[in-house]
């Protein structure tokens, strides 16, 4: 992280402008995404309050799972899934920004510094020679046969009925066996006292949004199910400039990237989608459509800018919350209840 700061200092104003630009985009996108989610309501309208497995923590579920009275009565349960269209992912090198899925996730979920719940990795290859490297966004795969859930000694990490894997940071003992067990390196530990904006740290604990973060516990991508249930998209999907990230419901067989609504099974099967490390038998809930960003126009050749990702919480916690801060107050579906009071 020291490198990042040095870099920002050296590059000076240009970088700051870039940051402001992407932050503004962040605000526009997440509001826009929520609106589209409502449009997509025919497909993604929420029915039934979702039960989070741990009853201590489902207080927020009723607020989020609104519409239970107007929706059709059904006992069917959502089965959240994600599809990544790798043909549209170039790691944001064309735009000359850090990977925006990661960046939006960091900002939206108040990800503690250094962690990348949604992480874009680069895989160099020589086919054809000189081709740009493959880039691959890695969220938590929400495995149905999750090694992390299997090994947890205290049941702090668990499956929700909708099939996502959550962590109860109030129960986690910090043994890190789940980190050792995860074959995708998708789990992160709060080694230090996590730095987050004050209003996040002061908010009551919510297991679904993992806020506030706590020292000595494990965190990871949670699929933003609070946003999905409210008809929105996770922050990463909002952030993707090329619409590469689809979220949907296996039960209803529908998915959207915020621009189009598609039949999930067709998206998976007709494009030859694969799951990462299928052979391990972890049954991930994330599919990848093979590709290497070929649908992204390649007018510039820029560097992969993962090292420019930012976690602005350190600065925010020392400054009073400014109007430019993309706090949760900007978004009606924000996950931190106390955020609106703050804003």
């Amino acid at each position, binding site marked *: 992280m020291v490198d990042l700061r040095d870099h920002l200092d050296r590059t000076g104003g240009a970088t700051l402008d870039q940051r402001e630009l992407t932050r503004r985009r962040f605000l526009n996108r997440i509001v826009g995404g929520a609106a589209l989610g409502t449009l997509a309501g025919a497909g993604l309208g929420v029915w039934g309050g979702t039960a989070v497995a741990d009853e201590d923590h489902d207080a927020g579920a009723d607020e989020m799972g609104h519409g239970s009275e107007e929706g059709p009565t059904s006992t069917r349960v959502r089965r959240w899934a994600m599809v990544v269209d790798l043909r549209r992912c170039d790691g944001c090198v064309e735009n000359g920004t850090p990977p925006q899925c990661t960046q939006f996730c960091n900002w939206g979920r108040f990800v503690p510094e250094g*962690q990348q719940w949604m992480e874009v*990795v*680069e*895989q160099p290859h020589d086919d054809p020679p000189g081709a740009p490297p493959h880039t*691959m966004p*890695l969220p938590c795969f929400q495995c149905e046969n999750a*090694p992390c859930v*299997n*090994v*947890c*000694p*205290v*049941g*702090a990490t668990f499956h929700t009925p909708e099939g996502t894997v959550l962590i109860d940071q109030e*129960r*986690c*003992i*910090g*043994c*890190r*066996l789940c*980190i*050792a*067990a995860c*074959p*995708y*390196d998708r*789990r*992160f*530990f*709060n*080694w*230090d*006292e996590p730095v987050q904006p004050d209003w996040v740290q002061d908010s009551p604990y919510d297991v679904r949004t993992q806020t506030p973060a706590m*020292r*000595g*516990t*494990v965190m990871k991508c949670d699929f933003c199910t609070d946003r999905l249930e409210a008809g929105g998209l996770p922050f990463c999907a909002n952030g993707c400039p090329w619409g590469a990230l689809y979220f949907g419901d296996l039960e209803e067989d529908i998915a959207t990237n915020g621009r189009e609504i598609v039949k999930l099974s067709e998206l998976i099967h007709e494009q030859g989608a694969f799951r990462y490390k299928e052979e*391990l038998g972890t049954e991930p809930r994330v599919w990848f459509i093979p590709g290497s960003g070929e649908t992204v126009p390649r007018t510039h050749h820029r560097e992969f800018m993962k090292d420019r990702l930012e976690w602005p919480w350190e600065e925010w916690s020392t400054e009073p919350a400014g109007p430019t801060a993309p706090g949760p107050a900007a978004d009606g579906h924000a996950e931190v209840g106390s955020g609106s009071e703050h804003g």
Partner: protein
Amino acid sequence: MAQLVQAEAVPSADERRLRMEEAVLAPLTRTGPGYVALMALMLAVFAWGVYAWTVQLRRGLAVTGLSDPVPWGFYITNFVFWIGVSHAGTFISAVLRVGNVGWRTPVVRMAEFMTIAALLMGGWMPLVDLGRPDRLLNLLNYGRFQSAIVWDLLAITTYLTGSLIYLYLPLIPDLALARDRLDPASHPLRRRLYAVLAVGWHGNEEQWRRLARGIRIMCVLIIGVMVSVHTVVSWIFGMTLRTGWHSTIFGPYFVVGAIWSGIAAVIVGMVVFRRVFHLQGIITPRHFVHLANLLLVAGLVYAYLTFSEYLTIAYKLEPQDADLLNALFLGSYAPLFWTYGVAGMLVPLLLLALPWTRNVPGIVAASVLVNVGMWIKRYVITVPSLALPQIPEGWAAYAPTWIEISIVAATFAGFAFLVGLMAKAVPLIPTWELAEQMEAGAE
């Protein structure tokens, strides 16, 4: 071999017994300055480690060199090491008792002391490693039997309890002896303590019968628990999908490794006790040679398992296996790996096998090397498999901080301190068993 023959004229059986009892009870009442200095040093190192731990508790695990890619390091390595050492007591004491091996007697109790001290130090490590030690009780409140950590908790606590009982039972007649022999005027408190602990032992026939029965049951039970302990420790690694960990032989591999390092630890302890408490007449070179035989067998089995494990991985050679083996054999972990392989495995085996070095200095040197080597081996099992990237990223780095080094050092000092303390508190040698054997002409 000349030392084997007692130089003095052969005294009568009763005299010999009395002299032996004197020698064994002497450390209880007489304390030399060397002992005090050594114990003070150990306590100081231990206290420094505890201070380091308080720093870590205050500031979190960020003070360690651990990171998300390498979430385990020195603490877990040290945990496996001490649980390994703890196998010594039981293996030597219980297995040899079941086999009715006569020469074991002077060695068993110090081995049992080491078991208990090693378990306490080993058991401390997971607690140090926890991100939220304040939530330790969650293991009881929400414990899931599907998790290897819960198996560990159960196995280690069972082993500690069993080892304490197994230490205590044969100790009862010795405590009674200490109660009867200690001068009540100069040691009133200790005498009363021994009286309580001796639970009214008078050595009548019924008591002996019950004691023998209890010991017999315990020594069979404790062997099973011993095997289970290091098996489930290995399963913390073996039950994951990590390259280098996901192996079916990890259970027996770890158990044999534990016996190998455990016997070596007992030999090192023995030479220290012999010197500090002047037990040269009771612990003879013969005992070292006998233990060296056991050590050699355990080492050969361990070498075989090591070979078998790496050959199987290397022959199929999946890409990740290739990366791991490259790093171990030729890459960044090669210095550690070959230090273990040569100095911790090959050289000790040669020292133990060759007739010129099958003497006390040679055996002790081999034992020290085995322990150093096995600590490195546990590190080489724990860290590289974690540092190996599972996604397209580079190798992760890990370097321990002074906090981790201090706490690991504290476990060694704490181990020595605890064993030293136990040796002062209760008779170090089972006098009645030794006497029985002297009568039977075994020793």
